Each structure stands twice: as structure tokens, then as C-alpha cells.
């Protein structure tokens, strides 16, 4: 007789609703007529993400205490629920960005199915409470993303991007798996809290395992020196996929990393804190310096996402309630800014039919005023300027670092921000200070595509970016109760 564990289906609802959407989309791929397929598929995908978001919001409201589900394999708490809200929201916006993309008709429903499946994997991943579910979730969304990166076979570099991401990502997964095996071998436990309770701090095998777990998770959050795949994958993948990777994957990886470290390895906190702080510094330095010499805008944004991983890792390294609050808050405007910035790039890409570089952004701000202003706001947000949530996010991260006495991390962050001013403002400069006539671009003729759906997506991102500056208090309150779920 097999004992079936009690399953709290409601707690799994964000993952399940996205999985259901993925299944439905596979049906759509077969049963809808070719003409209507793209629209129906996008609608179903969007509905899936929005449903997941609604479930996550309700879950957040109804999970005041941390509970373990399904034989202690999953968490039900506000830490993961808030991350799921951001992930599902990012997915919904990514669907809006995908609508105008020139997909091959026969694959369009599969594309949305993979997107929702990846979202489901991320929602599952952030709830993981043992090493097995953690790895399962990681592979789940990673495999979906490998395929998504390579899905547009007409796009030069897409296949290369997928392959690079697959190989490097597999190394990351293998590292995580090996690290988990070492931790399990030492403690005999899989659950995070039982690993902590087993109490084998300072044990060499456990520490090596911990280091490999950190490395595996850093691969996914594309923190330097585990970032090698990022620029190529971001550049080569279809832009809506890049947008989704830059926002949702980073949210999932960082939120899960913080949880694993805080719950499973409190005894070795002084070690992983330092390790994460060093990784943060390296990411800040590498991301910002490498971005200075890029001309391709997607590549610039890829390096910028590496440097932002560094910023968010400062919050992880602080390992405190304030740090958790800083991380969960930072993710909200960060996800919005990433999605929005890639959305604008996508718009320009569709207009030109060519990769977007700093040169061919010239005059864009005057030609498409709304997108231009939006891009401007996103860049200032990345830079951490006031009137965007990026400012408050950076401020909270610095506050968390200061709180712990990591003043050198503040210095690193400040220097990194100074450097980043060059390329973020460089994008603004490219859009506004030069006329497109200077470039002698060959206009394809006609007016640019209207892209109302994409415009809607950008508007949502803009609202969140600016709104998170003015409505700090409610968001911080949400992040505060989320951070309370962690034993710090």
C-alpha cells in the first residue's frame, strides 16, 4: 500500500495553471486553423500567465505562515508567492512582446507552450524546499529556455545561442547536481531545514558541496564569473525570449538562491556570505566594464543584466531581513525595466529587420516618441536615477550592505554605477542626440508597424518602473512580509 502524501493543490496553483496553459496550447497547435492560430495561442498564453499571477496574489495573501507541502518537498510562503507574482507578470508581458514577432506559423503555438512551461518551471523552482525539487525545477525551466533560445531558425545566431546556452547551462546544472550530491552525502538529508539541522558546519565535504550549489545557482542568475553564456544567448535568442530570460529567470534564480543559502546553510553563513559578496563584486566589475565596449544594444543589456545580478547579490550577501526586503523589492522594477528595454529593442528590430546597434538607434527617440521616452526611463532606472524604482532598489541594497557593515560593497556598487552611466546614457544619446539622416539608413518605406500590443507591454513596464518609485511603501510592505518567511 503506497501512502499518498497530502497535496495542497492550491499552493501549487501558479505552476499548475501555467502547465494547464501549456497543455492547452499544444491542443491549439493541432486543432485551430492556421489563420487564427497565432492570435489564439497568444491569447491562451497570456491568459495562462495572468491566471497564474492571480493565483500567486491570492496565495500571497493566504499564506501568512511558512508551511511545507507534499512530504516537505515544497514551500508555501510569501517569499515564493511574491517571486511567482513577478515571474507570472514578466511572462504576461513577454507574451505581449511576442505577438508582433514574425514567427513561423507552424510553430507559433509551440512557442507559447514552451514559454508557459518555462514559467511553470520557475514558479515550481522558487517553491522548492529540498535539493531534489530544486534541481527538478531548474532543469524544467532550463530545458524549455534552451529550446526557446533556438526556436527561431530563421534568425542568424539563434541556433548558436541555444547551443551555447545548452552546453554552458548543462555545466551549471551538473555543478548544482554534484554539489547537491556532496551535501546529501555528508548530511544524509535532502530537505533544506534538515540539512541545517544535521549540523555539519565547517565540514570540508559540505563546504565543497555548498560552493558547487552556489556556483550552479549563479550560472542561472548569470553572475560573473559564471556568465559566459549570457551575452551570446541574449544576443542570439529572439528578443521576447531574451526579455523573458533577463527578467523571470533572474528573479527565480536569485530568489531560490537566497532561500537555499539562508535555510539550508545557516551554519556556514560567514562563508557563503563572503563568497556571494565576491561574486557580486566580480559581476559588477565585469558586467559594467565589458558593456562599455559593446555596440549591439542587446549585448549591452546582457552585460547590464550581469551587473544587476551583482547588485542583487549584494542584498543576498547582506543575509538579513533588510537584505531580503531589498532583493524582493529590487526584482520588481528590475523585471519591468528589463522587459521594457528589450521590448523597445524588439520594436526597432522589427522596424529595421536587422540587429539593433547604437548606430542604428539614431533618431529613434524622435521617430517613435513614446518608445523613446520609455527607453529613456528604463535606462535611467537601470542607472538608479530618481523617479524610477531602480533608485529605491539601489538605495535599499546599499542600505542592506551598510546595515551589515559591508561598506566595501557599497563602494563597489557606487563605482559600478558611475561606470554604467556611460553606456546607459550612451543609449539615450544614440536615440536623441543624432539624427537618423546622419546614418543614411535605407528606409524600407511606409510608416513603422503600429505594434499596439507591444506598446501596451511597454506601458505596463513604464507604469511599474515609475510607480515603484512613488508607491514604495506598499511594495516594501509586501517585500517585508515576504522576507519574514526566511529564517534570518
Amino acid at each position, binding site marked *: 500500500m503506497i501512502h499518498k502524501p497530502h497535496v495542497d493543490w492550491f499552493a501549487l496553483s501558479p505552476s499548475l495553471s501555467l502547465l494547464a496553459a501549456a497543455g492547452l496550447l499544444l491542443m491549439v497547435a493541432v486543432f485551430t486553423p492556421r489563420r487564427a492560430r497565432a492570435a489564439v495561442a497568444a491569447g491562451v498564453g497570456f491568459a495562462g500567465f495572468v491566471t497564474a499571477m492571480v493565483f500567486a496574489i491570492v496565495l500571497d495573501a493566504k499564506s501568512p505562515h511558512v508551511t511545507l507541502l507534499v512530504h516537505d518537498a515544497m514551500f508555501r510562503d510569501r517569499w515564493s508567492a511574491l517571486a511567482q507574482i513577478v515571474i507570472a507578470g514578466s511572462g504576461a508581458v513577454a507574451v505581449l512582446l511576442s505577438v508582433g514577432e514574425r514567427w513561423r506559423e507552424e510553430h507559433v503555438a509551440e512557442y507559447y507552450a514552451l514559454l508557459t512551461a518555462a514559467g511553470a518551471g520557475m514558479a515550481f523552482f522558487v517553491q522548492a524546499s529540498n535539493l531534489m525539487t530544486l534541481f527538478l525545477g531548474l532543469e524544467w525551466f532550463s530545458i524549455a529556455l534552451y529550446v526557446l533560445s533556438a526556436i527561431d531558425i530563421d534568425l542568424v545566431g539563434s541556433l548558436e545561442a541555444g547551443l551555447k546556452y545548452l552546453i554552458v547551462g548543462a555545466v551549471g546544472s551538473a555543478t548544482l547536481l554534484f554539489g547537491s550530491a556532496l551535501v546529501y552525502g555528508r548530511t544524509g538529508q535532502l530537505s533544506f531545514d534538515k540539512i541545517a539541522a544535521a549540523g555539519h558546519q565547517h565540514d570540508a565535504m559540505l563546504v565543497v558541496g555548498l560552493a558547487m550549489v552556489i556556483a550552479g545557482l549563479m550560472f542561472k542568475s548569470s553572475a560573473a564569473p559564471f556568465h559566459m553564456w549570457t551575452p551570446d544567448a541574449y544576443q542570439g535568442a529572439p528578443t521576447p525570449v531574451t526579455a523573458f530570460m533577463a527578467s523571470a529567470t533572474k528573479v527565480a534564480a536569485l530568489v531560490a538562491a537566497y532561500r537555499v543559502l539562508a535555510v539550508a546553510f545557516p551554519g556556514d553563513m560567514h562563508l557563503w556570505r563572503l563568497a556571494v559578496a565576491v561574486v557580486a563584486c566580480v559581476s559588477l566589475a565585469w558586467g559594467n566594464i565589458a558593456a562599455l565596449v559593446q555596440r549591439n544594444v542587446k549585448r549591452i543589456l546582457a552585460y547590464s543584466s550581469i551587473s544587476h545580478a551583482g547588485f542583487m547579490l549584494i542584498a543576498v550577501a547582506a543575509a538579513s531581513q533588510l537584505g531580503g526586503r531589498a532583493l524582493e523589492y529590487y526584482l520588481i522594477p528590475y523585471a519591468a525595466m528589463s522587459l521594457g528595454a528589450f521590448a523597445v529593442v524588439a520594436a526597432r528590430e522589427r522596424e529595421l529587420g536587422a540587429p539593433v546597434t547604437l548606430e542604428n538607434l539614431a533618431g529613434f527617440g524622435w521617430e517613435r516618441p513614446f518608445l523613446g521616452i520609455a527607453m529613456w526611463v528604463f535606462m535611467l532606472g537601470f542607472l538608479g536615477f530618481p523617479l524610477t524604482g531602480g533608485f529605491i532598489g539601489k538605495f535599499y541594497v546599499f542600505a542592506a550592505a551598510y546595515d551589515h557593515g559591508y561598506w566595501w560593497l557599497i563602494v563597489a556598487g557606487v563605482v559600478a554605477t*558611475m561606470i554604467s552611466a556611460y553606456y546607459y546614457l550612451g543609449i539615450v544619446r544614440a536615440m536623441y542626440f543624432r539624427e537618423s539622416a546622419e546614418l543614411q539608413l535605407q528606409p524600407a518605406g511606409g510608416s513603422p508597424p503600429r505594434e499596439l500590443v507591444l506598446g501596451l507591454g511597454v506601458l505596463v513596464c513604464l507604469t511599474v518602473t515609475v510607480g515603484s518609485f512613488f508607491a514604495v511603501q506598499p511594495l516594501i510592505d509586501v517585500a517585508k512580509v515576504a522576507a519574514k518567511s526566511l529564517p534570518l
Partner: protein
Amino acid sequence: MNDWLTTILLLVPLAGALLVAVLPVSGYRLGSVAALASLVEVAFWITGASRFRFGDPSLQLAQRTPWFSDLNVSYHVGQYAFSVWLVGMTVVVMAACTIYGWWAGRTRPRLYFVLMLLLTAAIVGVFTAQDLLLFYAFFEAMLIPLYVLIGVWGGAGRLRATLTFVVYTVVGSLLMLAAIVAYGLHAGTFDLTQIPQSNSRWLFLGFVIAFAIKAPLFPFHGWLPDAYREAPPEVAAILSGVVSKAGLYGLLRIAIPKFPTVAHDWRVVLLVLASISLVYGSLLAFRAPDFRGVVMYSSLAQSGLIVLGLFAFNDLGYDGAVLQMVNHALISATLFLIAGMVERRTSTGDLRLLGGLARGRPRLATIVLTTGVIALAVPLSSSFAGEFLILAGVFLQRWVWGVIGAVAIVLAAMYMLRAISALLHQKVGSAVPDAALDLRVGELAVVVPLVACLLGLSAWPGLVSDHAFAGQHATEQVKSGLVLTSSPQKAGFYGVTCTVEPCTTLEFSANGTSYFGQVLQR
């Protein structure tokens, strides 16, 4: 403790910007909307100033709402007596510059006027914010419109100019952000009226460097030549007239009152830098090849002079510094606008190619001469009053600073007279066409009010210098961190009196008027 007036001063330009952004009208009318908004702003400032109790040293017209409570950050705005004058000079100069932009017919008017109005709001915000984080937000927010205003409407070298400008400013303001985080979290609040004084050298330096870059002071002025030369004239007027005052205001509001002991320990460094800026700026102005160069290096010199006044640490110095900030804002805005008007007629500012503009152009000659004479601190002018107070104050700190300041005033006379003569007199320059018109009505409408303000201040400099610190207790107020309320007492520029322990007696006789005062050495 909840007065909407300061908030209204912030909201009027924002509302104007929104209106300009959405109104379905064309270029010329957009300019009129923006000009109207900037004039409404001036009207609201007058309302506020008339309601202000200048005898009361406490924060007034204040409003406070929590912004995010876990770190004790709030939306807190309000004005001290000196802030009223700084806000006043801001709204007046911004109105003049906005109207000049309207008159000059800038291309892409919608974005242009939106940015001008946003800039107005940001600068007013800097002078009224009473929360460190809010102050920082406004301080940074000034940069964005300026960056685009220079980058889009600037001259041929604008790309380089914006780059150096942004690099310098961002470096400074991020140092300040780090200092703010450390200072505010350590104190447990970011409210400037509650935050306790600190004696951390690093925090002080973080703030001072940011302010010294903005002001600018001597080793941090590298961004100045490019930005002032490449910016459109009205933006250069704003930069040197009001934006630079944000840095000086920061010294007066944060660096000195919040770090009194460190400021005292570091005063010699600051005084030396200020003296170098003063002398070096004056020499550069004397050698500058173009009219803008003269005005821009003279603002470097004036920043140095004002810092001398601030770091004199006595009533005379503080009163003089505030008066001189207002004077210089009006003077340098007028001169930059005139530079722009001359450049429109001759398409150059090169002094070798100019000359003889006075002939047949009486209005231009009158305006240039009046402003120039006030700028070189002729006795009975408002800047004479300001510079006298500053020099008297810094003389009490140590006589050598007073001597340096006095030398620099001679230099000021030299460079200003050289510029006036090269512009107006001598033989007609090769770049001056005979058809170059005298100042038009539109241009007069912009500069005459500014010059009128200067003449008014010359007649009554005490309007600002007596009403900047509610009596003569500037030193106590600043020392106490500008938080407490002390008993007000009357003091005046014409006849500086002091009640306690007279140590030095100063007697000045200039132009038939005797300036006499017993001054306290602290």
C-alpha cells in the same frame, strides 16, 4: 505644519510640463503655455514670500508625509529664510530663460519646454527638500533635463560636453548617495530637521565633493568650459545662475550645519580651494577669448567667493554668501542671455571679432553696461554689498583671506571692463554686420526684469542679507544644524552691529558712504 505652498511651487511647473506635453497646439503656442506656467510659478513664490515670517528662524511653509517608513524617509519640504531667496532667484531666472527659449523659437518645442519646466521643479525641489533622500532625488533629477537640453539643443561639440558634464556630476552625486545611505541609516532618519550632527570626516567629504563639483570649485571644474560653451545660452544661464547655487546651498544646508566640527577642521582646505577658484577663475576670465568664457570663468570665481563667505563661519559671511548667491544668479543669467543675443546677431562670441556694438544700439549698451558694472562690484551695487559682507566676514576668520578676496575684486574689475569694452566699444568688429539690430522688445522683456531686480537689490541689499537668517544669529542657527528656533534679532547691512564683545572695528569709506561696523570675532 502642513502648508501646501511649497508643494504648489513644485506642482505648478510639473502641471505646466504635463500641459505642454499633451496640448494639441503647435510650437509657438506651446511656448506661451510654458512661459505662462513659469510666470504663475513666480506669482506663487511672491505669495509665499509675502506670507513668510522672516523674523522666525524655524522651517516654514513646510509639509511632511511619510514616504517609506521602515527607513524613516519622508516627503518633507519647507523653506528657511535663505531658501526663500534661493527659490525666488530660481523661479525668476527660470521664467526669464523659458521666455527667452520661447522668443528664440527652439526647434522641437514640445520636448524643450517640458524639460525646462521639469528642470524648474527639480531646482525648486533641491532648495526646499528637507529630507536627505528627497534632496538627492531632486539633485539627480536636475541632471536629466540638463543632459538632454545640452545634448539636443547644444552647439557642435555637444556630445563631448554632455559626456564630461555627466561623468563629473554622476561621480559627485554617487559619492553623496553613499554618504547619505551611511549617514541616514546610522542616524535612523533621513529627515534633515531631525538628523543629528555627525563628526565623520568621510561623510563630510562625500557631501562636499558632490557640492564642489556642482558649484564648481577649483579642482572639480573640468566640466565647466565644455558645458557652458556648448549649451544653448539660456541653459548656460541656468547652469551658472541657479544650478551651481544648488552646490553652494548644499554646503550651507548640509555640509556645514550637519558636520560642524569637521567643517571647522577642514575650513582651511576649503578656504584655500575657494581662494584658488577665485583668483584662478578671475585670471582665466581675463584671458578668455570669448564673451561666454568671461562670464563662465567669472562664475567659477564667484563660486569661490561665496565659499569664502560660507567658510568664514560668522554672520557676515553667511549673510553675504546668501546675498551674493542671489546677485550672481541674476548677473550671470543676464550676461549669458546677452551672450546668446549677441551670438544671434554676429554668430560668434569671439571678442576679437566683436566690438563697437554700442554704436546705434543704445538698449544693448545700457543693459550690458548696467549689468557689467553691477558685476564688477562698483560701490552701491548689490554685489558690492554682498562681496563686502563676505570679505568682512572672511577677514575676521583670518586677514589673509580678506586680502586674497580684495585682490580678486580688482581682477573682477579688469576682466569685466575688458569684456564690456571689447563688446561695446573699440572699432566695429569684423563679425558685426551693420544690420545687426538693437535689442528687440522680446529680448528686453527677458533681460529688463532681471536687471530691474539687480537695481532693486542694489538699492536695498538688506532685503536679502537682513532677511536670510532671521536676525543676526546665522552662526548659531547654522551651528545648531538649522533645526532649532532661536530668538530673532534685527541686523542690517548698512551698519553691521554686534552686541557681544567687540573685538574688531571695521570702517570702510567708499564713494561718500561710510560703512561702519563693530564686528565680533568668534
